[in-house]
C-alpha cells in the first residue's frame, strides 16, 4: 500500500488559519516532523493546500519514528570478534 511521506519544512506562522488547520489535520505539529498517510485523493488535496510548506515522497511502506531513526544512524563499522571474560 503506497503512502505519502510528508515532512513539514516551513511553518504556517503568519499564514491564513486554514493552512495551520490543514497541517494539524495532517498531524504535522512542528517543523521537520514527518507523517505517513495512505495515498488517496483526500490526502492529496490536503497536501495540495499546504504544498509550499511540505516535502512529499511516495513510499511503499510506512516507517515508525524509531525505524526512521535507525535508518539515519550510520554503520558502526566494527563488530566484536572475541571477548575477554
Amino acid at each position, binding site marked *: 500500500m503506497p503512502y505519502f511521506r510528508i*515532512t513539514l*519544512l516551513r511553518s504556517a506562522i503568519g499564514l491564513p488559519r486554514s493552512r495551520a488547520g490543514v497541517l494539524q489535520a495532517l498531524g504535522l505539529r512542528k517543523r521537520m516532523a514527518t507523517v505517513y498517510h495512505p495515498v488517496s485523493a483526500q490526502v492529496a488535496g490536503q497536501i495540495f493546500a499546504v504544498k509550499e510548506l511540505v*516535502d512529499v*515522497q511516495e513510499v511503499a511502506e510506512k516507517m515508525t519514528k524509531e525505524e526512521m531513526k535507525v535508518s*539515519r544512524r*550510520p*554503520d*558502526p*563499522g*566494527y*563488530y*566484536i*570478534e*572475541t*571477548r*575477554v571474560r
Partner: protein
Amino acid sequence: MLSRTVRRSLLDACSVLPPTFLLPCRARLINTVSHSTEADQVPEPLLNSGVHISPSPRAALKSSETPTAPSSAARLPQPNSIAPSQATTPIADSVKELLPSLRAQQPHYITAHIHARPYVVTQGDIIRLPFFMHGVSPGDVLRLNRASTIGSRDYTLKAGAVDHHLWNGKTKRKNGYLDERLFVCRAVVVGTESEPMRFKEKTKQRQRHVRTVRSKHRYTILKVKELTIRSPDEIEAKSDH
C-alpha cells in the same frame, strides 16, 4: 640583486638535493619497505637494498572507474555490532586483477570508518577514539569491517561512490565502503583514558546562585593488531561457504 642571487643559489641547492625518499629521515623506511611491483614475487624486506630507487608507477586501483566495480563498493547490508554482514556480490575483475600488486607492497594503511568517522591507520597504530565505546572491555578483539581506502606507498584501492538518499528525496553521491572480504583489520581494545576533570560555572541572570558542573569524559583506546589484504584465492574460498 644580491637577494636574487642568494635565492637562486638556494634553489640550486634544492635541486641538487636528492629526492625526498633518499633523505636520511626517509631512508629508514626505505630499508624495510619493498617497492616491488611484481605480483608473484615478494622479496624479503631485509634483502632489499637501501638505494632501491626505481620508482614504481603511481597506479590507482580506483574501483569507481570501472563500470563493473560497484560490487566492491555496493551498498552493504546493515550489520549489527554482534554479527557481521555477508556480502554476496562478486568482486569486480579489475579489483581481482590488481589486488595482488597492492597486496605485495607492504606496509598497508587503511581508512577505517567507526560510526562513519574515518581513521587512517596502519598496523601497530593506537587510536584514541573520541568517545567511550560501550559494551567492550580491554582485551576484546574488534573486527573493523568498514573501510573507504586501503593503500600502500604506490597503490590505493578506493571505494566507488554510491548514491546516498537524503531525507528530502534528493540523492547525493557519497563515498561508499570497500567490500569487507578484501581485507582483514583487527583492533584490540587496550583500555580507556580519561581527561582531567573539568569544572564549569553556570550562572543565570539576576540570580546569585552559581552552579558548578563537573565533567570527566572517558575515551576508549584501540590498537590495530592486524591489517592484511586477502588474496583473490582467499576471497573466493571465503565466498564459497
